[in-house]
């Protein structure tokens, strides 16, 4: 059975993770050393294909350490939080091998919370968002894999069912608080930090709901967050490489100088807040249906959080790109940046129009590998 499962790996999920890992190295200048990149790709592939939970978590912990190595030159807080996430992931591996399912579930959830920046564990991710959005994009690639491991190995254990509603409430509360906080941001990176932490809360709520067997919502939310916010992070990095840090001091007027960059920001931002036709719309819908079964109040909180973050996104877009034209000698997005943006957008649209491309095989894989599902 083990060999069979290894061959029947979640290839679609792996492909998305690898794409998200490679995309920033093509598009922007935050490139890790080749051995770090190769190491992360290897850990991603291995963690998603091995059939033993403890081994998979141990490999994921190693991957987090490699991300920390890359993050160190940009943000020490971010790097150390990734080291902490790695240690927690390793502890989850230890708990799994010791047969302590509940401990593994909680440790895994904490590791994901640290890596997606769910308040109050958002210090590291916030620092990465502010100092190196592209590095945050890259580390989201293996966070998606970690979510998959969570769904595959620890989320279905019977004793976690009592904890699932708490995870939903925690996620929903974090979601709405982060969304409210984002409304008060005064610069573009603050907005990116806020929307990242808000989506982290959303993912946490989805993980709680997944404990009832609704894997698809959590997986699609993770993938959408990775693609949409990953794309947004790259666009923000590209913009700031051209014009420096963007403050919200009146209208920025950058649309005239960077029309393509403006369009990409709008679509990635829209995908993050459920733009119809993109994966964000289906992810939100699926998540809300899943959450409703556990807690209608949390569902309402997530919907309001999503509405507020949409407003914050439009404010960010307006303050950065709209207004009287600000001339710039820097060029618009280069061809390599456009190619990556189009690829990510194509994936977001594909998953929005035909979400079953990812979800049906992943769901079938999880149900085939999880005895209780």
């Amino acid at each position, binding site marked *: 059975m083990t060999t069979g499962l290894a061959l029947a790996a979640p290839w679609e999920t792996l492909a998305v993770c690898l794409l998200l890992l490679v995309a920033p190295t093509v598009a922007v200048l935050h490139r890790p050393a080749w051995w770090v990149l190769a190491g992360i790709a290897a850990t991603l592939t291995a963690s998603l294909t091995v059939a033993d939970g403890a081994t998979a978590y141990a490999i994921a912990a190693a991957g987090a350490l490699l991300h920390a190595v890359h993050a160190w030159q940009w943000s020490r807080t971010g790097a150390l939080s990734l080291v902490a996430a790695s240690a927690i992931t390793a502890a989850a591996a230890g708990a799994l091998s010791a047969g302590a399912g509940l401990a593994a579930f909680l440790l895994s959830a904490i590791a994901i919370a640290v890596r997606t920046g769910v308040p109050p564990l958002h210090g590291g991710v916030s620092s990465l968002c502010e100092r190196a959005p592209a590095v945050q994009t890259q580390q989201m690639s293996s966070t998606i894999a970690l979510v998959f491991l969570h769904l595959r190995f620890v989320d279905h254990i019977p004793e976690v069912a009592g904890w699932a509603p708490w995870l939903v409430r925690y996620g929903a509360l974090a979601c709405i608080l982060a969304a409210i906080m984002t409304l008060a941001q005064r610069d573009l990176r603050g907005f990116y930090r806020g929307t990242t932490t808000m989506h982290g809360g959303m993912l946490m709520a989805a993980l709680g709901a997944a404990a009832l067997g609704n894997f698809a919502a959590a997986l699609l939310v993770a993938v959408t967050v990775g693609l949409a916010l990953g794309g947004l992070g790259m666009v923000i990095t590209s913009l700031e490489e051209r014009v420096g840090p963007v403050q919200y001091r009146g209208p920025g007027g950058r649309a005239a100088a960077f029309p393509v960059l403006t369009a990409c920001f709008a679509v990635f931002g829209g995908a993050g807040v459920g733009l119809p036709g993109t994966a964000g719309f289906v992810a939100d819908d699926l998540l809300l249906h899943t959450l409703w*079964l556990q807690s209608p109040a949390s569902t309402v909180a997530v919907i309001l959080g999503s509405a507020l973050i949409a407003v914050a996104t439009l404010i960010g877009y307006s303050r950065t790109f709209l207004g009287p034209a600000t001339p710039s000698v820097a060029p618009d997005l280069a061809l390599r940046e456009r190619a990556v943006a189009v690829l990510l957008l194509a994936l977001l649209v594909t998953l929005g129009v035909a979400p079953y491309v990812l979800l049906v095989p992943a769901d079938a894989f999880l149900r085939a590998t999880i005895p209780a599902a």
Partner: protein
Amino acid sequence: MTALQPVLAVAVLSPMAAALAVGLRVVLGDDRPSERWVTSVIAAGLTLSVLGDLGVIGVFTGLVGPRIAGEIEFGDWLRLGDFVIPGVIQLDRVSVTLALFSSTLTALIARFSRTYLHKEPGYIRFFVLLGVFATGTQLVALAGALELFFAGWELIGIASALFIGFFHERDEPIRSSVRAFATYRLSDAGLLIATVATFELLGSARFSALEHAGELPPAESTMLALLFLLSAMGKSAQLPFSGWLPRAMEGPTPSSALFYGAVSIHAGVFLMLRVWPVLAVSPIARGVGVAVGLATAIYAATVARVHTDAKGALAHATLAQVGLILAEICLGWTTLALAHLLGHALLRLGQYLKAPNMIHDTHRVGHSHPGHGWIARVAPRLAARIYATALHRGRLDDLIDAIFAPVLAMARALDRADRWIRGQASLEGRR
């Protein structure tokens, strides 16, 4: 698969496909395609949509082949276990009428705008948004399930917000755009919650499932109806959400005509027609709807009388009629409401498009002062107070700002606390 499915797909998707084609060309390198090319592509998409809708009407009425009505299945958008998002189109007299109506008006507006916006800096953006809007309206008109309807509803909202901020070199359009979008999103929460609740309570989010709303306990059907009403109030600018509509006049005249005269402003009342089975079993929600509609009509009629700018006065005149349509629906006069909706949309479209000529016309034919009304004669002080209130649009924007002030204060306090805590824990300063 019936022959009607490709026709429906063309009617709904061709404008979006045209918008995507223009958008992709820009993103992939050609930042400045010619106006002629942009107009041709978008016009082709819109024309195909009109032709598709004509074909649909032909089949629906039985003029072309055997008559087809009811739900047309396109397979499942997503199916995972018990959870299904159906790709289903609903053909009935309301849906096909509104679909053809909106696609025709959008195509006409596109033709009008080709000349009106010639050499305008945002020309490409305008036409791309028009394509997005057209697909949104087709989805709203033809959707057979709430998820599909919501997708169209959101596309209309996003296009509307971006049209309001079209002339973004000035501050006011940007502020108005954010305000309109915030109103949309917060009231859309009602539709989203209602969609999820409908699925869980009735086992499906298809409009046909709403026929079973009468089997729900009264509290649940009332909750559903009120949530739908909340969403309609936001989209159709009913009290207390009316403040965004006059601000929306910052957009280009053709989009104002299409959105706030003809199609978008009526989307909320169209939703009420669509979910009529839920409203029918909820007298409380219908009562609230009548009260809101009539209050909006009185408010808007009063404000329209004192407005000095043409589009602002038209916006409030529109609002007054939309309030009446909402009241008609909630009173159960749905056929009258549909006729009122279509007639009103056509009238306003013409008036909005003519608005830029109004000053010229006024100079040509002159205008007369309406004189004092009966209130001014009977109770002059009351009339003065009403006049002052109307001049300030009932201070609706101030009211909404006051309601959201604590949220913004909380946002600032949370942000300050967060920055302080992260600052204390940060290792960056010690490098």
